[in-house]
């Protein structure tokens, strides 16, 4: 006789818990859902209100401002390609979703990361939670997300948020803990309070690491935003899903390529935020050197 082990119904318990939450906090989730939908729609409308050629030039200029003229050129080419593949609207919908998820994730992640960096107990408690959020298959989030928020942008956004949050927290903690010990000590030695040390020393010196975290958040948000298409969030994800269901290779490739172009654009842009000093050919660097020259001349 095979040994047996009693089945512990963890899944059922979670299911029951979610049912209870829906029954008792339905209004809260409905409100949240509506708010997220409004935010996403508003940003999408804003992005789409700009005529495509103007928008493409603006995106290219942003690339030049933060990185280089080469990036501006590449942006021009790839975004024109997105437009010509008829993926402009869906791309802007995805971009809106990614941007809103990123902003919310960063707003949550940085304070959490700071807290974890200053408190070992918090750090230890957060670690397994972050592991859970990152490794739980992304599709699993979608089920309760649909139950709570219905179909549309909101469940996609929530699932994206959960999936994209951990690197923001981790990198913030890492960045702050990695600030040179002696430099922090110098702050203490001159009588700075903890808050002054955080604002004046730890956060500024952790910026490159934190920005690398934000970069990861954006990348994960983009990859998740595609999956969000399965729960009805408008955008490139939806295109991909519909391409799969109709076995439409052409559409799938076009939507997929658009995701890639968007991803590279966002990665390079936020990557240069992490190390602004390295971007010698950016407009910002040029402006800065002009200002310094002026300051020296005076």
């Amino acid at each position: 006789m095979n040994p047996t082990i009693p089945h512990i119904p963890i899944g059922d318990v979670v299911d029951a818990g979610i049912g209870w939450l829906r029954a008792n906090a339905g209004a809260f989730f409905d409100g949240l859902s509506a708010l997220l939908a409004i935010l996403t729609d508003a940003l999408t409308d804003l992005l789409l209100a700009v005529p495509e050629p103007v928008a493409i030039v603006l995106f290219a200029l942003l690339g030049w401002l933060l990185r280089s003229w080469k990036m501006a050129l590449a942006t021009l080419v790839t975004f024109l390609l997105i437009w010509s593949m008829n993926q402009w609207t869906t791309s802007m919908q995805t971009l809106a979703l990614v941007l809103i998820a990123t902003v919310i994730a960063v707003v949550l992640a940085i304070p959490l990361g700071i807290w974890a960096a200053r408190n070992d107990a918090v750090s230890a408690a957060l670690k397994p939670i972050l592991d859970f959020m990152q490794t739980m298959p992304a599709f699993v989030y979608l089920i309760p997300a649909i139950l709570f928020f219905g179909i549309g942008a909101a469940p996609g956004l929530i699932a994206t948020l959960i999936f994209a949050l951990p690197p923001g927290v981790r990198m913030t903690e890492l960045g702050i803990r990695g600030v040179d010990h002696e430099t922090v000590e110098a702050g203490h030695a001159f009588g700075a309070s903890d808050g002054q040390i955080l604002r004046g020393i730890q956060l500024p010196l952790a910026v490159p690491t934190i920005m690398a975290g934000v970069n990861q958040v954006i990348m994960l948000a983009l990859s998740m935003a595609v999956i969000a298409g399965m729960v009805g969030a408008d955008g490139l994800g939806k295109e991909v899903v519909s391409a799969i269901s109709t076995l439409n290779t052409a559409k799938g490739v076009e939507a997929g390529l658009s995701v890639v172009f968007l991803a590279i654009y966002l990665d390079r842009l936020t990557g240069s935020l992490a190390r602004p000093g390295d971007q010698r050919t950016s407009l910002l660097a040029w402006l800065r050197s002009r200002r310094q020259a002026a300051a020296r001349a005076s």
Partner: protein
Amino acid sequence: MSAIQANGLYKIFGRRATRGVAMLEAGASRDDLRKDGLTAAVIDASFEVDPGEIFVVMGLSGSGKSTLIRMVNGLWESTAGELEIYGEKLTKSSDATLRRIRREKVSMVFQHFALLPHRTVGENAAYGLEIKGLNRTEREARANEALAMVGLEGWGGMLPGELSGGMRQRVGLARALAAGTDILLMDEAFSALDPLIKRDMQDQLVDLQRRLEKTILFITHDLNEAMRLGDRIAMMRDGRIEQIGTAEEILNNPANDYVAQFTQDVDRTRVLTAAQIAEQPASVLGAEQGPRAAHRLLRESHNSWLVVLHHDRTPAGVLWEDDVAQAVRDGSNALPWSDTHEMPVVAHDTPIADLFTQAAQHLSPLIVVDDAGRFQGVIPRVTLLTAVGRPRADAPAPAPAGAGG
């Protein structure tokens, strides 16, 4: 009142560290504590630093000197013992009190500079003032003043990353000076610098200290540096202070074998000064006297030269035997100053390493004068050579072979 006064300071790392104090007082060793999971970094340290003094704590890595200096501004809380800054108790005081003492009384210079790379040199120098809450104009004025003091006038707009190591440490020093505290803690401040720059910075520090009369607690693992800078030196080993004394005391009367061993390699010529090896000549001549008196003194002293002093004890010159004898034969009444010999005069605080060139150029002994130019003594060549050659300044004449070491 002492600037810094430490009484029986202990710092022990580990869980329930206070039990380690009791163990140490009961005679347990550092190793015994280690078996219990405790690390005794500083054991029963007592010392006083007077206002305006450079007090050097010297020890190898792991001797507890860095922990000790961090207890002086409360970066580490002491496990036991008391510490006062100008009579104000630092041990067991609240965080707010600690911060106030750090803002107003004690600033610090770090081994690896610890500058803020995202701020300009000027903003770095003004950091302490910013924490104090001064407005921008006043901050900038005082930071520029401090930068000028360390020789970095006009560099305020640069970023620390654009400066060399020595210059960065000058910024670190300027930051501490700008804060306007009386006490400066310097944690291996020059250890990361090239030897040449290090010398430069040491000279500059001594110079600044003389002008500003800051109280400096200086930590180093370099005994030569300790001897160059320190008015007094505390030798630390394994968390304990082994000896406190002036450079000379430590060189000449080491408290134990450890200190003695340590001082073996010290370049004595850089530590001992002219005044310390100068001797009193058998006799000196007043400048108003004549050749006959000179002749008599020369005969009595068995020397070939004679020092002549003015009324105010400033040196007038050196007379030589041959010239005096000639003058006596000629019946002259004026002192016969030599045509060939000059009188080499050196300041009392000249390291003896700097005396050799002069000694080589002149046959006559070196005349040592104090700050007011008054005669303090002479250093004949033989004395100079002996001072360097002797292993111990107070050792008796040649020991029999095989004895001593």
